[in-house]
């Protein structure tokens, strides 16, 4: 069961910084995962679906069509701003 991690305004949208999430049957890619989360919470789904949101699986940037069934940690990151 992967851990989902939310940063910045996505943390506010999710109402939490992280959660354990049981992947529903049929979820294979990151895009599938976003769809599953949207089914649970439509507003969060819209926020996670924005193209400016980047995803990382086990601390490596991934595309939305990447397979995440073996990932232990999936991060959702809005535009970054350091400095």
């Amino acid at each position: 069961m992967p851990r989902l991690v939310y940063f910045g305004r996505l943390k506010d949208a999710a109402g939490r910084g992280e959660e354990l999430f049981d992947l529903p049957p049929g979820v294979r890619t990151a895009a599938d995962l976003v769809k599953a989360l949207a089914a649970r919470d439509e507003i969060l789904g819209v926020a996670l679906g924005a193209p400016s949101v980047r995803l990382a699986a086990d601390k490596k940037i991934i595309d939305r069509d990447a397979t995440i069934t073996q990932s232990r940690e999936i991060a959702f990151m809005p535009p970054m701003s350091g400095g």
Partner: protein
Amino acid sequence: MIRVQEEPFSPGAELDAFLKGRTDIGAAASFTGTVRDMTGAADVARLTLDHYPGFTEAEIAKIENSARTRWALQDTLIIHRYGEMRPGEAIVLVVALAAHRRPAFEAADFMMDYLKTDAPFWKKETGPGGDRWIEPRQQDRDDKARWGAHKES
């Protein structure tokens, strides 16, 4: 060298420590980013930086490596804070050491532009009116674009 830390730091003390004992450099360019009191009410204003432990350090290392590849530098230092900060406190320090001033200046400028848009931090500004997430401005993206097509990864 990279440090990502919650503790406050003194940019000048870090600069002096980084320069100490070096006789091989001629130029040290530095940049310090500080929390600016945007609200006119320093007592309530604060900035909170979220980061992603492990990932944040790795992404900053890519920025540092890009600079080291692109310019002839003797050494580089990036210190970046996370957590809660008050107006006047330093958020980030970047130092580039080189034999001559142009590579030192350009590398420090470059590292700051990339930190601004590519370093995994998320900034929340708190003022009398509540919280506000800060995301890179178009100006920040334009600044980064000055360095040309350039892949970090």
